[in-house]
């Protein structure tokens, strides 16, 4: 490694690499925003970025505290509504990629952002769905981006807010949903999903991380293919764009 990058920067770059030119991407705030703007400013200039509340293709100059911050709506092509974005674009089937964060994810890529703890006993209510359930249900594929911790990557979660492959196998198709999660990007590794069982499957490990690190800090065993390569590190240019253009105030990337 001839230069420094942070785990968050690697996650954002890995997310950006999953996005292709001309795709329509529904984005939640935080790392997904950095990944999407990075893709747009490098290999995917004709990508369309959507925010659920009614924003199409913004070009922010300043970083915002959330989707409700007019800073992230700046220079949009369209400012409209939930029905326009989550309805006419997403529900209609025109969103290629949904980009989601989560508090907990299970081995089938189901996400919990609602209740942490025991729903029948003592629990804490978090933020719920917003547009996440709609995006996870209706996008052609979803990318999940989150920290790699045992309490976040769990065999079973206490509440499914946004469906992944539900109970695995064909259970997602059986409830009438196409699509599903294609990638889970953490600060240690990248996962896909097994074609038949729909269990999470290790695809690559980030440089400097061992297989033991990955497996020892998650709550279930992912499918392990015979060969597990290292994740490509970010390029100088990608890191420069993140630091100088997209997130100079480190609002989304944190300080790590």
């Amino acid at each position: 490694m001839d230069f420094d990058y942070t785990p968050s920067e690697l996650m954002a770059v890995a997310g950006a690499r999953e996005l292709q030119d001309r795709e329509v991407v529904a984005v939640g705030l935080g790392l997904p925003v950095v990944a999407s703007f990075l893709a747009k400013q490098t290999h995917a200039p004709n990508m369309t970025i959507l925010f659920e509340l009614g924003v199409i293709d913004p070009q922010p100059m300043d970083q915002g505290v959330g989707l409700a911050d007019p800073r992230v709506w700046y220079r949009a092509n369209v400012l409209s509504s939930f029905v326009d974005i989550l309805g006419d674009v997403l529900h209609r089937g025109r969103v290629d990629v949904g980009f989601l964060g989560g508090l907990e994810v299970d081995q089938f890529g189901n996400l919990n952002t609602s209740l942490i703890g025991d729903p029948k006993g003592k629990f804490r209510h978090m933020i719920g769905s917003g547009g996440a359930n709609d995006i996870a249900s209706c996008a052609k594929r979803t990318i999940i981006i989150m920290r790699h911790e045992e309490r976040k990557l769990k065999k079973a979660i206490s509440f499914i807010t946004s469906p992944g492959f539900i109970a695995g196998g064909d259970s997602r198709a059986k409830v009438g949903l196409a699509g599903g999660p294609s990638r889970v990007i953490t600060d240690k590794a990248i996962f896909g999903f097994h074609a038949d069982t729909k269990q999470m499957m290790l695809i690559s490990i980030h440089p400097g991380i061992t297989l033991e690190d990955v497996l020892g800090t998650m709550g279930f065993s992912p499918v392990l293919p015979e060969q597990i390569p290292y994740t490509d590190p970010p390029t100088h240019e990608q890191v420069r764009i993140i630091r100088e253009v997209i997130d100079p105030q480190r609002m989304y990337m944190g300080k790590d």
Partner: protein
Amino acid sequence: MTKLTTLTEAVASIPSGAHLALSGFAITRCTMAFTREVIRQRIKNLTISQCVGAMDADMLVGAGAVNRLIYGGGSLDRFGRLNCVNRGIEDGTLAVEEYSSLSVAFRYLAGALGIPFMPIRSLRGSDLMVHLKEKSGSNLSNITDPFTGEDWPVLKPLLPDVAIVQVQVADQEGNAWIMGPRWDNSEQVRSSQRTIVITERLVTDETIRQNPERTVIPGLFVSHVVELPFAAHPTSVYRAYDYDSEQIQAYVEATRTPEAFRAYLDQYVYNVKDHWEYLERVGGLKRLNSLQADPVLGY
């Protein structure tokens, strides 16, 4: 016909037990001056709905004015969670119907169109659906598509008594412009029995007629118009003013415990005569002027 009135009069038109649709989204265009007046007038047992839970709903819940919340989840963005709503859910004192954003938008849309139900692809395979169906009088069911034979979840129309919408510009009949994204506000207005418009600026009928393509809320839906600057403070109004970070942080701190929140309500709601005194208490013209939006940036 003029529908121009005072905030006090507009709020007095709302009976306890009413279902209100509020225009806020997290920390933007929240009906804050309205909310503070509802609390001062001690209106109770409200049902509140919105696609994404916002500061207006959270404050009403924290003040004990709400029995039931119909929403799609929510937060105060980076500032924090909806502590009052979450506490109500955790201790069982608040009845919630928790959906996704689009589910609530589709319920308003069904109400606006006057159709009996709305099919939706979302919610399938989730515990949101399980919880919604477990509740008595569930507003979610299933139907077989008569054309394809496919099974579809269907939502019941949402028909609020009153929509309260914070806008930038309106005339005295209630023809109103919403600048920036409108999230669920158009559907809220059209599904509600009537609408109260709170506007930053009152303009003449002629201004509206010269720019009719900008009208988002037609006056025919509106019962009351209130002109009140900085009525969404401490939340933002696009092209008018930014959110007040210090005041939102103070709110988040105060909502961590019921005791601290009672003191907050005393300071900013109960012991304040009206909106003008509130604006003085949070820093007056000097503070408010610093929040004014840049005309190019919109914030």
